[in-house]
């Protein structure tokens, strides 16, 4: 399936892009993240991240669907 992955903050800097289309067999955000670690040499720990699918926070074991917009959320620092 095909997903849109957007990157922010430290992840955007590590990937060197703010968005990409990903063709994947990953069933969950956790599996997808492992693929992205391999593809981009990410050094950020999955345990430090949350994930949003289509603009809502979901668990790392959430079932992904074709066309989903996935965003891994590094620790936030608003305010």
């Amino acid at each position, binding site marked *: 399936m095909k997903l849109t992955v957007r990157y922010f903050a430290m992840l955007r800097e590590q990937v060197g892009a703010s968005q990409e289309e990903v063709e994947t067999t990953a069933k969950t955000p956790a599996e997808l993240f492992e693929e992205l670690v391999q593809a981009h040499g990410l050094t950020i720990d999955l345990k430090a991240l949350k994930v949003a699918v289509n603009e809502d926070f979901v668990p790392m074991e959430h079932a992904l669907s074709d066309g989903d917009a996935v965003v891994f*959320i590094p620790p*936030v620092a608003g*305010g």
Partner: protein
Amino acid sequence: MVFEVLDKPIDEKSMRTALNNPSAGAVVTFEGCVRDHNEGRQVQSLEYEVYVEMAEKEGVRILEEARERFGVLDLRAAHRMGPLEIGDIAVWVGVASAHRAEAFDACRYVIDALKHRLPIWKKEQYTDGSSEWVNCQRCQAEVHSP
């Protein structure tokens, strides 16, 4: 109820005016400003990066939660994105209610929830030339020795 992510200065006077309400006996507002120091380091400037679509959705959700929970009349909040200087208003929250106690409580609830839940990241530039993503000092995966 309005929550906005702004790439221009927050106009706190017009945000306050928008809360005028004949039933409100109390209006509590909060301004969060850019500080010249953080955790012992001298801050030169900072930049907020925002996942705008989600921040707007989550921001409105937080205001709705506060209205239900504290029974206040109206709430408004805004958060900046992009580069900011020392003293700039980074976040603004205003609550109008019949009485003061629930206005203070709702305002505190909103600012705490905005800080914890909005997908917003802050990169601080320090006077020594270095920079860092705040709260992400321990994000790196541990390197396991063989």
